[in-house]
């Protein structure tokens, strides 16, 4: 029997596996503000 739980797990398996502790990279530009924005 197909259950909701199995469907959810299958959906998870479709995603690209990411290593533990993965932090998405910051957007490449613009860069960080060093002082303040005006």
């Amino acid at each position: 029997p197909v259950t909701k739980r199995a469907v959810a797990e299958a959906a998870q398996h479709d995603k690209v596996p990411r290593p533990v502790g993965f932090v998405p990279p910051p957007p490449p530009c613009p860069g960080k503000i060093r002082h303040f924005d005006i």
Partner: protein
Amino acid sequence: VPAAPLAPLGCDDPESEAAAEVAVNYINGHSHHGFKFALNRIEDVHVVPQGPNNAIIFLELDLLETKCPILSPTPLANCTVRSFIEHAVEGDCDVKLQKLDGKISVLASKCHSHADSNKDITKVCPDCPLLVNLNNTEVLESVSALLNDFNSKTTGPYLRLLEIGRGKIQYYPSHVVTVEFAVGATNCSAEEAKVNVEACQLLPEDQSNFGFCIGTMVKHPIQNVHGDCQLYGHQVPTPDIPLLSRPGVTYAHAGQDTS
């Protein structure tokens, strides 16, 4: 043969920051007016490969005005960025650089500076003094009064005005005009200038013959002037001590284009 495509450079990548540092030094080194500018943000970066070990880098930079006059000997790293409520001035620059065999150099730059809007300042600080035009009558009057006052008291060389850098006016709780201006030493003492001021000529363009004055003229309730000037040749470098607690530091130029 087209060069192999490179991974796009991020604005906070070390290579972008290295290029921005070269660009900011170039911009300050080629400016003759106002204050030194410091990097606030790298807005955009594009790299166009030209061949092996050769690339053109296009940078879009957001700079902020510091308190160090452009003629000051203080290194940029020791210059304090002017705070938001001091009515900050921003510089937007487009810079074209070349990276050849690992060495970065500037090919061209174009900058435009502008002061923050009065509305932005008053929203945060309703009574803060605001920048006014450098040819404002009260600014001119205050610069003249301060320089005359200084020259009447100094035992050093007679100073001439080179350039007004900043003028701010506050109306509440007192009517106060704050001015900052660059000066040059002349070949006359202040005493000699009293006899024939027209004969006093600016000394050669050596950094030690330049100086900077900052002061205030209170217009109401009681009129008085207070300020000081110092020649860079006589200055002990103390870059991060606030203005008015030491003589000679500061001046700016808003609305200025350079290329």
